[in-house]
């Protein structure tokens, strides 16, 4: 692996033969892995500017984050689309950022997936170098910087708009953050949605959310809101009963980040299927 020594090496000659990345003075990237990669491998980050890409690239669609009484619930549908084509049926849009937080992605899938990997490494890198984890707000600000670094691509149409949520161990509560393409970071007090079906999901959540909502109820509400989005938005994947594909759901509370198992999600999704999505024409009569 070619790790180049950047900036002034610590000593004049021999250190250049060290395979370890070491820096001197102002070129030192400190505890930031993002800055380290920019110093050593500028070809990896940030991405080069292009005029336009003459083909459709995969996009991730609807994601939600809901604050509940003891933490926060994150969920995302599984579909990726490229133009009118379905690019992926099993995409995972919700991922752990670290032990206490999660990140969900919507937008250009290539950049988004890479951004998540970079963000995960960044948080762990900081923790190992400093000996302490960043505060939840510090993590949100780091992600905002990565979104901002993608602005050039966003202006070509490859926008990445993640959601970030986690359990703030210093405040003992769940917190939800949204971002815009310019790296703006906003804290939401209740819930947030992003992606092509986000309006429908948000309206669904808005109708039922309340301050002391339990984790179980929030999980159901998240799954439900994604079904509602899939009902109205072609780019959002609904429950796939044939292939047994259901949304990705994670709960983050005082026990840390816990992804719900496929079986658990399937069970809950099945139970919710008798709801309004069945419509008036469903066998057995009108919806309740």
């Amino acid at each position, binding site marked *: *692996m070619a*790790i180049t020594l950047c900036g002034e090496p610590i*000593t004049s*000659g*021999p*250190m250049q*033969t*060290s*395979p*370890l*990345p*070491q820096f001197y003075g102002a070129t030192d990237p400190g505890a930031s*892995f993002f800055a*380290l*990669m920019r110093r*050593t*491998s500028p070809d*990896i980050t940030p991405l080069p500017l292009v005029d336009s890409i003459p083909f459709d690239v995969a996009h991730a669609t609807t994601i939600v984050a809901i604050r509940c009484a003891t933490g926060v619930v994150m969920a995302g549908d599984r579909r990726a689309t490229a133009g009118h084509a379905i690019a992926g049926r099993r995409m995972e849009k919700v991922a752990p950022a670290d032990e206490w937080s999660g990140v969900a992605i919507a937008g250009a899938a290539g950049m988004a997936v890479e951004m998540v*990997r*970079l963000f995960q*490494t960044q948080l*762990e*890198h900081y923790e*190992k*170098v400093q*000996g302490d984890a960043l505060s939840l707000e510090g993590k949100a600000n780091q992600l905002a910087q990565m979104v901002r670094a993608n602005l050039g691509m966003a202006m070509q149409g490859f926008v990445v708009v993640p959601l970030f949520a986690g359990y703030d161990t210093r405040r003992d509560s769940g917190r939800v953050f949204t971002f815009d393409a310019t790296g703006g970071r906003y804290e939401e007090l209740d819930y947030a949605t992003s992606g092509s079906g986000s309006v429908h999901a948000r309206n669904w959540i808005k109708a039922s959310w309340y301050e002391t909502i339990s984790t179980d109820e929030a999980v159901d509400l998240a799954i439900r809101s994604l079904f509602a989005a899939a009902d109205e938005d072609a780019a959002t994947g609904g429950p796939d009963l044939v292939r047994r594909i259901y949304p990705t759901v994670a709960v983050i509370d005082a026990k840390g980040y816990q992804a719900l198992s496929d079986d658990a999600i399937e069970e809950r999704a099945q139970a919710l299927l008798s709801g309004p999505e069945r419509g008036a024409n469903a066998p057995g009569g009108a919806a309740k």
Partner: protein
Amino acid sequence: MSMPFYVSPEQVMKDRAEYARKNIARGRDLVALECAIGVVVVADNASRTLSKISEIYDRIAFAAVGKYNEFQMLKVAGIRHADMKGYSYSREDVSARELAYAYAQTLGNVFTHEMKPYEVELLVAEVSETPDGNNELYHVFYDGVVIDEQNFSVLGGHAESITELLKEKYSPGLSLGDAIKLGALVLGNGEAALGIDRLEVSALDRERGRRTFRRIKGDELEGFLGA
């Protein structure tokens, strides 16, 4: 015309080695032991905040004795090296062997070419994925010599006498608690075992999932030492 004094290369190397050895010996020792759950590192360290043992990567830990600022810099360089490799390739491609080699090369070059060698001794440990796999313990010296050790590794000025003690008392497959107690005992170097206020303990615990490194302190450590 003034002539510089001639000093033989042999003498230069001897002087540097003695300088490094002497200063390393002034510090306190640490031991790493293979045990049932993986690898445990027990260090004689009176500080509560300045640690000698650190996490490098999922299955890799770093421990050092000697000059604090020097091994801290080497620790950070190692974390950067590992994270960059894992990010550029895959997490599975990061290995303790390669990292130990990078440290050996760095220390060796400084030892040969610089005025002053690093006054440190390093340990790079990797826990195996399964209990019947091989853990790896790499002991890197101030001059770039690297030894891969089995069962246990001792760093510091009293390495010889502590190794003798361990040869007598160590047996493979120790429980975590027994390994910590043994570490505290041998670090006492024939005298009383070290107490909780002198110990820094961390483990690579393969039961923990992806990130195996964890610090053992406070009540948990007290429980192990008392039991």
